[in-house]
């Protein structure tokens, strides 16, 4: 038993040690942040020259039927089902596009690269992607460009020169502002808040968390950041993590941010099952279908998200425009079917619009 006791002491000591080393604020990346002004005045747009890449000797695809493959971060989650739906919708509307979605079953950079590589070989005309890692995906995308394939990103960007255009659902600082403002409104200016995210390595989430911290420091300085926990893209883990946070902080916890479309409904479920509806605010990114029960029960007041169906739709429209040659470097806007004209920002990005806030009143109108 002596060794056992020793082992127990060592492990507990280690836990204690790490506890001391813990910092309250985790989860963000270390890139520079660019928080928006508190009152929402848009920052002066800095005109930037086109910094995307160009395919080498693409064949003339104008008006011709093209094959397009969509490789999202992973398949089998509600969010990318919705983007895939939008892509299919746009393809059907255009009539001259043959589009399909295929990708890894877990958000794994290596597998995603392999998928894209295979589709390059099979000879598609266009690739749509949502990158698991902006840098890791770059070489294979550059290879696609070299083979004359049109490459357009959405949702999660790569380095600019590795793709032609990127459809940006909403700027990081915009999302951050919407989330933090909603939280301050629902939970109070001095609320203690925690974050449930996927993993610390997921670029978009890490970026949002960094921007949220920066924005809150500037505009809601009294907000207390309690903790960030990882929960993969796993429903049950997210639920368990959120529950533990609720149990740990008790009444000190006034709000939970859900950073993924998995974490937000699971956190809402945790609050519901803990009987804390109305005492703990849930603000986060999520798809409306998963959130309807909680919004209708008034447990969740607002869900922030762009419309992912629109995002997929826009990405497909942009790709068609690029293939047809109607979208050229230097353009300031692009026509995107039913979405109308979309604005070009940051040189080679196309902005979908501001993030949308679903509430009890409007959530019934959406089905994705």
């Amino acid at each position, binding site marked *: 038993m002596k*060794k*056992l006791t020793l*082992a*127990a002491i*060592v*492990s*507990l000591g*280690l*836990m*204690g040690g*790490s*506890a001391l*080393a*813990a*910092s309250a604020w*985790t*989860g963000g990346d270390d890139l520079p942040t660019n928080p928006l002004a508190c009152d929402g005045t848009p920052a002066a747009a800095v005109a930037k020259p086109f910094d995307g890449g160009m395919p080498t000797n693409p064949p003339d695809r104008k008006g011709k039927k093209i094959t397009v493959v969509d490789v999202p971060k992973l*398949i*089998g*989650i*509600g969010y*990318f*089902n919705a983007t895939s739906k939008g892509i299919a919708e746009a393809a059907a509307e255009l009539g001259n596009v043959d589009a399909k979605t295929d990708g890894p*079953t*877990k958000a794994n950079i290596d597998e995603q690269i392999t998928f894209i590589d295979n589709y390059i070989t099979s000879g598609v005309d266009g690739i749509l992607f949502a990158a698991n890692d902006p840098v890791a995906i770059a070489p294979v995308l550059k290879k696609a460009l070299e083979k004359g394939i049109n490459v357009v990103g959405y949702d999660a960007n790569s380095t600019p020169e590795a793709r032609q255009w990127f459809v940006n659902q909403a700027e990081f600082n915009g999302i951050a502002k919407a989330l933090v403002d909603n939280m301050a409104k629902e939970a109070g200016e001095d609320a203690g808040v925690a974050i449930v995210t996927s993993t*610390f390595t997921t670029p978009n989430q890490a970026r949002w968390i960094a921007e949220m911290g920066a924005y809150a420091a500037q505009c809601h300085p009294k907000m207390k950041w309690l*903790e*960030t*926990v*990882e929960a*993969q893209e*796993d*429903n*049950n883990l997210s*639920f*368990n*993590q959120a*529950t*533990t*946070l609720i*149990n*740990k*902080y*008790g009444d000190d916890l006034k709000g939970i941010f859900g950073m993924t479309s*998995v974490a937000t*409904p*699971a956190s809402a*479920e945790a609050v519901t*099952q*803990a009987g804390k509806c109305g005492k703990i605010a849930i603000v986060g990114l999520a798809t409306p*279908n*998963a959130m*309807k*029960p909680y919004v209708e029960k008034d447990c969740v007041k607002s869900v922030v998200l762009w419309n992912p169906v629109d995002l997929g739709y826009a990405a497909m429209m942009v790709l068609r425009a690029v293939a047809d040659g109607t979208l050229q470097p230097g353009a300031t806007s692009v026509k995107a079917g039913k979405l109308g004209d979309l604005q070009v920002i940051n040189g080679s990005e196309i902005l979908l619009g501001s993030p949308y806030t679903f509430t009890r009143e409007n959530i019934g109108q959406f089905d994705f």
Partner: protein
Amino acid sequence: MSSAALSPGRSNLRRFLTGYGQEIVVLLSIAALFAVVGAVSPRFLSDTNINSIFAGNAYIAIAAIGMSMIIMAGHIDVSVGALIGVIATIAGTLAVKGYPVWMAWSVPILFAIAVNAGVGTLVAYTRIPSIVVTLGMLSILKGGLISATQGEWITNMPAEFMIAQMRPFGIPSAVWFMVALTFIAAVFLRYTDFGRAVYAVGGNMEAARAAGINPERTVIGVFALHGLFAGIAGILFATQLQVIQSTVPPNLELTVITASVIGGVSILGGAGTVIGSTLAAILFACIGSALIFLNVSAYWLRAVLGLMILATVLADMARRRRAR
């Protein structure tokens, strides 16, 4: 062979300690964890937190019961995570499509039993190692699930379907299931011929055959039983939340296997108890929760968990060496 082990007059306590060594180690670890974390953060000991630790991880403990039997019988199943994902999806789909709730519960369980009985048949009669068959099964179930659902989430399940959220006598039903199934499995393994045959086949297959046990049928039976437990785990998993993801829960099989092994089931077969595996599953759940309570930096969480597993394993090894 220690002298005490041979003397017929040794005390019952000592026999108990040597017989259930690993279970006691795990139990003590849980107690130590509660004492230390409770001292640092009293909220850890609140009944709501303890309830959620148990309820949120009961399905892992239940799956580990079946896995323990498989390992005791000298086999292994690396596809159990995928199977649970498939069961959850079938159950959710049936419930949403309006089938009666008893069907939504029982059909997926029967499916799990059938699938695993098939795996068991293959393992028993072709002598292909179970790790190979279940590695293949893992691929088939995982790929098949995604092909069939395309990852469409299942929502809007009827309230009466959500068995895991019911709270008879104020305690979550998942906890009732965990306790009851562990008890039933323990009694079953101890007091039935089939239960003893599991140990016999895992300990010495040829001896089992000579003792009049049919090893093939036992292996198939164990796999089918494992299917039953995985099925129940899958139903609890499906009904815990309002959303079923329709995918394979990541790394679930590793968690389940680790729980069985840390709970004292010998990876070589023939020894172990389901009480140990349930305790180990609870220990993991407690560690997961305790690390958050202790403010262990989330970055280092997994490293600490790995270190603790390693410490448990080494302590067990030291204990066994002394017992020898």
